[in-house]
């Protein structure tokens, strides 16, 4: 498949998205936990253009108020006591747009960190397998097969089952990154092992060995460079998987939990389709998944090719 420079757009979109969630404090009009109980479950609100200014309806009174830019440390907003929810509000009257930004921070960061952990573990295990003693190779590969043999979601949930249910959101974040990373190491490890084995036979590695270079010198000096492209591709493929894992776990109340916010926690509403049918905008965070995955895929394809 030739897609030309499509990946540049994809990388740009992803960079923009990451910048947006990191800058949530400025871009989001409200704090993720800020409640406006007078205005629960408000549908996304339209913006009107009147007299050279952007005008919106106050979510509580319905009166028209002007959008204020660059005020109060936020990019935009309306003057309190009026409230404005660009993408609607949830059952507690919390701004969905702000929560999507703050939640994306957790979801997207957890995905990247999880991918980094599993790449690191996978690289170490793969190179140990390829260059280390035979028994270690056998042990690592069998362990990897166990991780691969189980459906990942059941595996992740099975491990999650034995951690305390009520955890601080920060603790869950760290645990998720570590757990997901530890469980996802097997596939990259197999790949790196195969590459390591084939590199081991290549002329320049054999020559280096002949000059008396140690295995770890060879791994560091000659193999890592060759593996860089594969590392990038694998990373771009792993991030969306971990993103989905976080969303799925949190959606079922087993990942990030209140008062923390992630795309997964925002989506716990999907477990009640009747509720979702009345307030469909609550599913908006799910809609973000498709473009994010697509962009990561374009980047992975570009790095592979």
């Amino acid at each position: 498949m030739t897609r030309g420079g499509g990946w540049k757009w994809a990388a740009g979109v992803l960079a923009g998205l990451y910048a947006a969630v990191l800058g949530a404090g400025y871009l989001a009009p409200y704090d993720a936990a800020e409640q406006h109980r007078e205005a629960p479950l408000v549908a996304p609100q339209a913006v009107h253009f009147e007299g050279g200014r952007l005008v919106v309806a106050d979510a509580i009174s319905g009166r028209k108020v002007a959008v204020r830019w660059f005020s109060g440390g936020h990019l935009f907003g309306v003057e309190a006591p009026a409230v404005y929810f660009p993408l609607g509000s949830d059952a507690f009257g919390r701004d969905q747009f702000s929560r999507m930004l703050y939640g994306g921070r957790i979801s997207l960061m957890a995905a990247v960190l999880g991918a980094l952990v599993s790449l690191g573990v996978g690289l170490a295990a793969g190179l140990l397998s390829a260059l280390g003693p035979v028994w270690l190779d056998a042990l690592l590969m069998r362990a990897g097969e166990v991780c691969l043999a189980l459906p990942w979601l059941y595996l992740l949930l099975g491990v999650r089952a034995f951690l305390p249910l009520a955890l601080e959101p920060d603790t869950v974040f760290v645990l998720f990154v570590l757990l997901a990373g530890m469980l996802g190491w097997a596939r990259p490890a197999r790949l790196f092992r195969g590459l390591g084995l084939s590199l081991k036979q290549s002329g320049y590695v054999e020559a280096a060995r002949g000059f008396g270079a140690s295995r770890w010198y060879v791994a560091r000096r000659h193999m890592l460079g060759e593996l860089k492209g594969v590392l990038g591709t694998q990373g771009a493929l792993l991030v969306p998987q971990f993103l989905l894992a976080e969303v799925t776990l949190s959606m079922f109340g087993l990942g990030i939990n209140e008062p923390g916010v992630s795309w997964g926690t925002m989506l716990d509403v999907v477990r009640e389709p009747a509720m979702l049918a009345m307030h469909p905008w609550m599913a908006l965070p799910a809609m973000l998944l498709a473009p994010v995955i697509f962009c990561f895929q374009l980047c992975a394809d570009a790095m592979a090719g």
Partner: protein
Amino acid sequence: MTRFFARRVAQAMLLLVVVSAGVFALAALAPGDYFAELRSDPRVDPAAIETLRARYGLDRPLAVRYGVWLGEAVRGDLGVSLAYNMPVTELLAPRAGKSLELAATAWVLGWILSLALAVGAAVRPGGWMDRTTGWLVSGLLVLPEVLLAPVLALVAARTGILRLGGFELALLALTPGVAPVLLRHGRAALKEAAGAAYVEAARARGIAGRRLWLVYIFPAAANPLISLFGMSFAGVLSGSLVVEAVTGWPGMGPLFLDSIAGRDFYVVVAVTLMMAALLAAGNLAADAMLYALDPRLRRPQ
């Protein structure tokens, strides 16, 4: 032949023992159990809690519990659900049936669809089928169950075209997730086989059409596909959990989530083990097929 399979079966058994031991060991690290909540209730006598824990064997050391459980599991008794107060096997059987019904249908459907499309793509490389399937792979990859299931549930709840909790809805949400991986690999394998030198040679000898595909191309392309057999089913089972929980299909998924939230120890262990057993069985079936199709495996080394 018997040695080949004896080794594979032994490996599968070992896998099940390792998984069950791992799950039990994790339980040892976990704080609290099903009865922990009772402890915060001042009306409940601590001695009564201890009696309850003793009845379900939760007071014994981990190794003993695992030994006892393993002995009973071998005889088909997977323990007792603490929340439902009934044998785990009785609780799981109907739900596992429902899960399998859904997952197997989606899986078979996914295989048929992807193989048909892959053949279409391989017949004329660079043709419109080839290009379409290429886009279809990326298109379907960006529609994970987590996205598709809520959207379909939403459509079902709003329009009533599909029934929530119905088979069609669950199937529709699950099948698209199966296809892309199979389609991508199937397409690559068939294309590679169709472009091989011996296929060219066969064509030169005047072999064409159905005979060329059935005798020369498929057997050569089957190998990498069969190794996808077990893994693709693992993927379907993971997706099935999400789909079941969102669309309301009464399979193992919702029960598993409830048992995790409720600390229903034996149910969690049984479901995890059942998944491992299913996968082990799938891989054994794949091995048997490989053995039947690949003469290299039959040759004594």
